[in-house]
């Protein structure tokens, strides 16, 4: 059940919210836990055991770590930590990389990272092991962020898990975020994504170079609005339940370097790798060579986390190359520049996304030959003016996407957010989202015409 479905928004969510608000405070976690399990079961019943197993095992192992407040960090704690991590990452590895499993259990990449962070934090003494099973279960399975993040640290929501209230303002803010996130997905991402779909239908071998570039930009915008829209919806849902879910995207496309871009893109994942891999390895405190090695480890794991296919390795390697280049040479120059940094970023990042998008490495090579035709020809039938029609069709969406990739609309919105006008704007956006969702959901063929 995706957030941008009628089933979720107008069936599951209202029913759940009514039950949730009627539940006495003491049992709210239980309701949320049960609701999340229902949410997961509707989506993918067969892996619910895996999710619950993850909660049980980590709950037990964390509880065993420090049985008394006075107990210090020793071998037993270390062994328990290793055991927990082996189990968590072992399961992830089995389903994601071993090739034995047919499909990836819903949300496993995200919840594995959350629970691993939890046991590491318990081991480090940063947080005490959670004594209430329901509380830990509520944390890990919480449906707003279960499927695709943001990755939340237990420490950040520990307080809210114990005691939380939902004020009128919070709920209202939640609805706003939910609507805006939904709009990002259905008004921008899904529609500009059709260009990428068209390009695949034509076949990479047959697209003109301008169309290849349009495709790279369209995919970049699609990915951003899809993922950041989803994260925004998660934040909205969290607010409606009384949780503060962290910001996951901060206008990544206005960055002036790839280094900065990745501090603004999927922030909670970057934070996870920094906190649990990069810094434990020594971060940048052990000399330049060690820093580069640490970066290498982080990016190898980041690439692997996204998927086991070759194209993700190529994607990760290209990012690593750019990060090295920036760290060693470019960064001071890029940061000082007013224009070059932006131009550079908007040139290289879409190229890395193409590698991210195209799983078949041969096809990826073909795409790059179309992007840079001087590398060689692909032998397809190319219509050199194919982009003209697409330019006509997609320019408004591109402009919309570019505008909303900057902080300008949000700044403008903040000026009248609390006024009637602001509420009406949100309502209009809601109506438009419902329109696009309606015409695409029941009959995709009205939408994706032949």
């Amino acid at each position, binding site marked *: 059940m995706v957030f941008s479905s*009628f*089933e979720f928004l*107008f*069936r599951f969510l209202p029913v759940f919210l009514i039950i949730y608000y009627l539940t006495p405070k003491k049992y709210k976690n239980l309701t949320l836990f049960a609701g999340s399990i229902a949410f997961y079961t509707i989506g993918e019943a067969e892996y619910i055991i895996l999710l619950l197993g993850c909660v049980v095992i980590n709950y037990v192992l964390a509880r065993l770590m420090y049985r008394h407040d006075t107990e210090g960090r020793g071998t037993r704690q270390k062994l328990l930590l290793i055991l927990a991590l082996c189990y968590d990452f072992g399961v992830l590895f089995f389903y994601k990389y071993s090739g034995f499993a047919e499909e990836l259990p819903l949300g496993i990449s995200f919840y594995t990272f959350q629970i691993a962070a939890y046991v590491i934090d318990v081991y480090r003494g940063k947080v005490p092991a959670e004594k209430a099973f329901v509380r830990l279960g509520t944390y890990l399975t919480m449906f707003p962020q279960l499927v695709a993040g943001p990755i939340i640290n237990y420490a950040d929501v520990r307080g809210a898990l114990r005691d939380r209230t939902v004020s*009128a*303002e919070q*709920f*209202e803010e939640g*609805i*706003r975020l939910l*609507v805006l996130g939904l709009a990002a997905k259905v008004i921008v991402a899904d529609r500009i994504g059709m260009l990428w*779909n068209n390009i*695949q*239908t*034509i*076949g990479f*071998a*047959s*697209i003109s170079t301008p169309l290849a570039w349009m495709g790279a930009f369209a995919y970049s915008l699609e990915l951003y609005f899809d993922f950041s829209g989803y994260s925004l919806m998660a934040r909205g849902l969290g607010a409606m339940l009384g949780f503060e879910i962290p910001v996951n995207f901060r206008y990544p496309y206005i960055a002036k370097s790839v280094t900065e871009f990745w501090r603004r893109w999927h922030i909670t994942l970057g934070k996870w790798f920094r906190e649990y891999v990069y810094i434990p390895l020594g971060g940048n405190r052990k000399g330049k060579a060690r820093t580069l090695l640490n970066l290498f480890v982080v990016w190898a794991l980041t690439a692997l986390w996204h998927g086991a296919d070759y194209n993700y390795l190529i994607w990760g390697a290209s990012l690593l190359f750019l990060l090295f280049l920036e760290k060693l040479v470019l960064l001071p120059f890029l940061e000082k520049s007013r224009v070059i940094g932006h131009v550079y970023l908007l040139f290289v990042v879409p190229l890395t996304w193409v590698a991210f998008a195209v799983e078949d490495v041969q096809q990826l090579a073909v795409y790059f030959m179309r992007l840079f035709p001087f590398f060689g020809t692909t*032998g*397809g*039938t*190319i*219509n050199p003016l*194919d982009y003209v029609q697409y330019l006509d069709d997609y320019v408004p969406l591109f402009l919309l996407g570019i505008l909303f990739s900057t902080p300008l609309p949000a700044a403008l919105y903040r000026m009248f957010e609390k006024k*009637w006008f602001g*509420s*009406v704007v*949100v*309502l209009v956006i*809601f*109506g438009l989202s*419902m*329109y696009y*969702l*309606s*015409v695409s*959901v*029941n*009959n995709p*063929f*009205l939408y994706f*015409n*032949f």
Partner: protein
Amino acid sequence: MLKYRVTLLVLLTWAALSAVGYLGKDTIYKNYKTDPAKTPYFVLVFEGIHDGIYPWSGQGNLDELWDDYEILSFLTGEGEEMQQADGEAKEPGENMPQETQATEEAPAVREFCEVDESYFDDAVFIGDSRTVGLRDYGGLDKATFYATVGLNIYDMWTEKFCEVDGEKVTLEEALGQRQFGKVYFQIGINEMGRGNLESFMQQYAMSVQKFRQLQPDAIIYVQGIMRVTKEKSDADKIFNNEGICARNDRIAQLADGQTVFYIDMNDVVCDGQGNLRDDLTFDDLHLLGSKYGIWVDFLKTKGIRPQE
């Protein structure tokens, strides 16, 4: 109260539009299907808006909107001929049925022959996105194309989609301005979820008659609708090869072997089971840009020599 402004507005909109959808579900929205367990009734309202049906649209003009074929016959004033054409189409027969009107001596069926690319210089191709693909990737630079994505049999005579001298005009206007030697026609996948086989064929036969009127000397090729892949066909209740074949069988009956010919590109793009080959398509529905040559080569085997 003011603290909940957006919440209230959203809830009110949801309730109001759902009421409209619910009240109209058996009247103005009767042709849309919903599953109330999964979708709210307001979806009907938006779907209607998309198709030009507004909550305030009266029942009267809606019947017109829905019965597309009636609208068309009304517009073109050819109701009677149309029925006749339909009767003709129902006659059993193979690819080349005999004339329905009893003729003393049926002239011999004209045979196909190999032709080169210049054969298409005076041809016009009419159709949906598949024909658009042929235009863009088929390399037939001298042929004329009146095709647009999403074109369907019910709207093809009312929609202004033909570009003539930089202006968009209706098909009737476009065909009225220039005489072509051949008319290639392939349509029928977009409207599979709309109307039924009979309404489709009625409309189709009428369109062929209209070509005949507007292009009295042209050879008319009615092309079988290209099938979809097995994966798509098996998974889709509407857009499947069973439905396509049913239509193609009927389209084939329109051929007379004299000036109207049925050709079926499925012969060269399908596998042994009659499904579109996987390696020719990404989306299970369209040929990849680099594969349109197969269609062109097929067309080159279906030339008709001018009569002595």
